[in-house]
Each structure stands twice: as structure tokens, then as C-alpha cells.
């Protein structure tokens, strides 16, 4: 009896209505429970789209997505123009996502942002949700900002709050879509440290990032996406980043070097 992977994607195809080529072409991989799965690749390679299909934000035209062994999304060829997937609220809370930027609700305080979904969707007790929210904020070093408004926070602080907001739902998989790309350099570190802490605590995560050193440090498994295909994948992040097998991966990694 083997344990089901947290997330398994089989033959996923994503095709926009007016495009010649699919954005994602026959992608398959699994994310085991408690592991960190990192996706790297040049811009336009389909990395963000991949996360968005898993979160149900974009319909898929082929393949399946399974969460803990249960298929939650099946591709339909005629769905190119369909909107978001019609997943149940409960199912959506099982996959968390943090976006690149500006996704805190500006009309709610930090605490209001974090407790909105647990009280509204999971029908949890407000006092209990607030207690957990404060605990999460302590974990990311923001307990003293619980009553602040989003516009009073720095970019790095906002992203840490966004992570808390996702964590309070206890998602089985947490998706990160270039969460540090819009941040000033000195704020990148504080967000990445939180993510490293999460990895140690055994949170299953799927991360799209441009921070190669960070990727190397955190990844249990890494894939390079290019033109909608997985060009190279590896269970050994160190080997992948120092000595990749394919010509394409070598070329991609060279763009981050200065010599």
C-alpha cells in the first residue's frame, strides 16, 4: 500500500482559443506529500499558467489533475473559452495559492484578510480563527501588525500576510506564483525565509520562481519548463543547478550568470 501523492498531473494540455500552439503540452508529474516541487523556466514558458490550471483559475483541454488520488479536473477540448473551473468551495480551500502581488483585500485589515475564508467558507468560530491567525502572524514575524491595513504594509509584509491567509485553511498543496518578483530586493529575503520555514515543517508546496539560489536550496524536485514542455527534471536540485543534462537547461541557467 503506497501513499497517494499530494498532487498528480497527467497529460495536462492547455490551449488558448486563438493560439496556434498549446501553452502546456502533455505535462505529467507528481508532487509527493511533504515535498517541495519547484518549476523554473524562461518567461512565457507556461509556468504561471500551470499553477493557475491546478488552482482552477483556467480550464484545461486535456489530461487530469488529481488531489490526494482523487481526480478533481478533467480536460475538455471545447473548454478553451470557459471561465474558472466550477469547483466546490470546500475543494478550493484544499489548494492554496499566493500570487505575484497585490492580492490582499484592501478593504480588510490584516486579521480581516486572514479570517475571511475560515469564517465564511469553513464556518469556523471567529475567535478560534483569530487565535490561529495571530499564531500564524507570529510565525512570520507580523503579530504586531494584525490590525494594520494592507496599504500600510511593505510589499514583503503583504506577501507574508498572504501566505498566512492561505495557510489558515490548512491546504494540502500550497502554490506560489513568483511571489517575490514584484518586491524590492531587500524584501525578497524575508519572504523566502518564511517559505524555507514552511518547507521544513513539511508543507507540500509547488513554487514558480526566478530566484535560482533559493530554488536550489529549497527544492526536493525541480522541473524546467520551456515552450509548454518539461525539458528537464531532477530529484537532485544540486545536480540540476550545477550540472544539468540538457543543452537547453545549461543555456537557461547561463542567463543567470555574470562572468
Amino acid at each position: 500500500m503506497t501513499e497517494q501523492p499530494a498532487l498528480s498531473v497527467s497529460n495536462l494540455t492547455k490551449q488558448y482559443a486563438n493560439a496556434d500552439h498549446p501553452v502546456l503540452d502533455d505535462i505529467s508529474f507528481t508532487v509527493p506529500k511533504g515535498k517541495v516541487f519547484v518549476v523554473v523556466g524562461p518567461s512565457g514558458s507556461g509556468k504561471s499558467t500551470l499553477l493557475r490550471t491546478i488552482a482552477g483559475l483556467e480550464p484545461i483541454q486535456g489530461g487530469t489533475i488529481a488531489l490526494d488520488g482523487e481526480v478533481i479536473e478533467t480536460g475538455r477540448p471545447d473548454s478553451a473559452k470557459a471561465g474558472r473551473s466550477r469547483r466546490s468551495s470546500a475543494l478550493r480551500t484544499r489548494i492554496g495559492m499566493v500570487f505575484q502581488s497585490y492580492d490582499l483585500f484592501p478593504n480588510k485589515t490584516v486579521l480581516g484578510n486572514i479570517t475571511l475564508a475560515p469564517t465564511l467558507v469553513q464556518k469556523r468560530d471567529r475567535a478560534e480563527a483569530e487565535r490561529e491567525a495571530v499564531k500564524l502572524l507570529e510565525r512570520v514575524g507580523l503579530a504586531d501588525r494584525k490590525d494594520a491595513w494592507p496599504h500600510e504594509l511593505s510589499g514583503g509584509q503583504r506577501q507574508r500576510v498572504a501566505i498566512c491567509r492561505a495557510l489558515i485553511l490548512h491546504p494540502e498543496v500550497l502554490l506560489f506564483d513568483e511571489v517575490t518578483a514584484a518586491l524590492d530586493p531587500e524584501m525578497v529575503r524575508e519572504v523566502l525565509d518564511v517559505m524555507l520555514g514552511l518547507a521544513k515543517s513539511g508543507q507540500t508546496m509547488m513554487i514558480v520562481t526566478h530566484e535560482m539560489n533559493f530554488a536550489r536550496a529549497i527544492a526536493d524536485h525541480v522541473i524546467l519548463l520551456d515552450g509548454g514542455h518539461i525539458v528537464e527534471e531532477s530529484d537532485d536540485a544540486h545536480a540540476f543547478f550545477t550540472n544539468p543534462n540538457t543543452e537547453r537547461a545549461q543555456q537557461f541557467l547561463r542567463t543567470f550568470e555574470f562572468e
Partner: protein
Amino acid sequence: MFDWSFVHRYAPFFVNGTLMTLFISIFGILLAIAVGLVCAGIELARIPVARQIVRVYIELSRNTPLLVQLYFLYFGLPKLGIVWSAEACAIIGLGFLGGSYMAEAMRGGLEAVPEVQRETAYVLGLSPMQSISRVVLPQAISTAVPGIVANVIFLIKESSVVSAIALADVMYMAKDLIGMYYSTYESLFLLVVSYLVILLPISIAGTWLERRFDYARR
């Protein structure tokens, strides 16, 4: 010279005129908000034919003067057998004019909410209704409030035109007294004071309201 006893004697006329101005304005503004909501909703939902009708209505309403709209409603339409009271005409006229302005302000507010806000609400498991009521509308309103307040003031000012279809509002009182007694300065003084009494508090309240709803500022 300026005759204070005249001012004293005829001030009650202007109180009545003010009440008429407020009566027409309040109902006209409520109608304009309702029309604006419906139009903004139709445009946002992209309902095929209704959307074109809304576009035509907005262009007609924004590019013609209220006075001509009122004359058409009050003097023109009865010839087709559609007879309204002057009050109804004034309210419908203000609603017709203001509806397009309100629609634009509301649409601007809704469009200003970034898509990622709806996506975040979806990912967190919020239902479409929860997403609209807890996330989208509060932000849309905060962006739309300054425009809506400006439209309210604009419509109260425009309501002065209803004096032209014999409604006894503030403007009508001034015109009447000037015509009857040649007490020009006193009447004009009362006219200015009446509009200041109506519009200054609203203008100040509007500024307060804008600050109150300013949480969307980044």
C-alpha cells in the same frame, strides 16, 4: 438700498422653494442611481442587445441639455397622450440625465477592481456571491464614491432648471420675486443663501465620505 425686512418677509418662500428643490432632487437622484445600477450591470454582464441600448441611452443623455429633455417630456410627450405632472417630469428628467452619469461612475468603480482580487477570492473558496459582496463591491464602491458624490451635487444644481416647467423651487421663487417686486438684490441674496444651505453640507459630507471609503488607496 438693501431691505432686510424684505428678506425677513420672504424667507419662508425660499424655505418652501428649498423643500421643493430637495424633493425633486432626492427622488431624481434615487432614480438616477437605480438607472445607473441597471446600466452598469448590463454593461458589465455584456448582455447583447440591452448593452447596445444602454450605450445609445448614455450618449443621448450625456450629450443633450436637461432643459430640452424636460421640455420634450413636459410639452412634447403629452401630444402622444403621455401626460405627466410637472413633478413627475422633473424627477424622470433628472433620472434620465443622472442615470448615465451614475452608470459611468459605477462602471469605473467595478472595472477598477483588479482581476487578481476575484481570483484570490476564488482560490480561498469564496462563493460567487461572497466574492461580490465581501471583496468586489466594497472596493468598487470606494473607487466610485467620489464620482457618485460629484454627480449628486451636479444633479441638485441641475434641478434649478425645473423652474422652467413651473415647479416652485428655489430658482422659481427668486424669478417670481424679481418679477413682482423688483427687489433684485434681496431675492438674489436669498437665492444664493438657499443654494449654499443645500449644497455646502452635502459638499462637506461628500469629502468626509470619500475619506471614510478611502481604504482602497495603495
